């Protein structure tokens, strides 16, 4: 028992610590940004990004220094996010295409009103919030792929490596995600096109 506890917390050298600090300095903001786009909450993004780095640190001795740590970090964020959703069973995740059903019957999902006054809708905080809301309407798998591809600008192959899925899966998830967002974001797209 005592031995297993010790192996969980091995003694790291100064060098290990310095390398890890460089990793944190280089990627923490980026990891936080992705966690924020996935969760839509500053507090959750903070917890998720901290936990992702702690997991890397715990596994530090077993990590190949040549390994693509960045991709690994994003995969950890994605897994932690799914864990978080599972733990919060009270808050159900709805897909955009799925009708909302409540005890009083089926609700019509509120979509942005195309007639709304969006003339001054440059990409300000309000538009940002609406896009973020639309992202949260996607399933976590679709959300992660579209955040990595369209927000962060990664190529399909990089995303496939990060997420441990075939390129074909990235391709189809991204297409499904864009099609779902296409309708929800139509009013914003229209107002931006006018402006």
């Amino acid at each position, binding site marked *: 028992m005592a031995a297993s506890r010790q192996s*969980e*917390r091995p003694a790291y050298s100064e060098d290990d*610590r310095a390398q*890890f*600090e460089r990793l*944190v*300095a280089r990627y*923490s*903001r980026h990891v*936080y*940004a992705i966690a*924020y*786009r996935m969760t839509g909450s*500053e507090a959750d*993004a*903070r*917890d998720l*990004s*901290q*936990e992702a*780095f*702690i997991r890397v*640190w715990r596994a530090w001795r077993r990590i190949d220094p040549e390994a693509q740590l960045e991709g690994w970090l994003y995969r950890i964020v994605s897994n*932690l996010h799914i*864990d978080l959703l599972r733990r919060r069973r009270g808050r159900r995740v709805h897909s955009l295409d799925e009708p909302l059903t409540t005890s009083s019957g089926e609700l019509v999902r509120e979509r942005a009103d195309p007639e709304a006054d969006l003339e001054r809708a440059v*990409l300000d*905080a309000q538009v*940002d919030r609406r*896009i*973020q809301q639309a992202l949260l309407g996607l399933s976590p798998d679709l959300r992660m792929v*579209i955040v990595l*591809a*369209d*927000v962060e*600008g990664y*190529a*399909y192959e990089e995303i496939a490596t990060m997420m441990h899925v075939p390129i074909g899966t990235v*391709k*189809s998830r*991204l*297409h499904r995600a*864009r*099609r779902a*967002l*296409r309708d929800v*974001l*139509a009013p*914003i*797209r229209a107002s*931006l*096109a006018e402006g």
Partner: protein
Amino acid sequence: MDRIARQLSAYLDGELTPDETRTVREHLDACASCRTELEALRDTKRLLGRLRDVEAPPDLEAAILQRLEQPRPRWFTWPRPVWPRPALVGATSVLVAILVAVPVVNGYRDRLRAAEVSPDVFIRSAVQSAADDPFMDRAYISLVSSDANLRLIGEEPRGPVR
């Protein structure tokens, strides 16, 4: 048509092979609805690309490094243990052990008692079948048989042992 429509996102991203790209392009020349769809997907992608940069909290790095010093947090680690109360689990296992042990021990004692009486049962039945033999001594048979009967009901045939 559907196959082409599913490839529009990858076409937009330049992620198709040259052959696939050519096929999609030829289809787009002839299909207005796919051209509209492609534009809608392009606008959606552009919109996401224009999201503002998320600003991380200024103390994020410090908070991560500070957590290295702390023991494993409860926030994200293992799910709850299946048995959260070890004392209760211990008491339950003792109770289960007793409930299993009592019938086992009783059964063993019953088998021991059965073994004590069985020689007399055997003697009685052996003697009674021997009585069929016409040359058998009837007096001896009745003596042995009644001794066995007495022992089976718990009496000492020769009276109390001195």
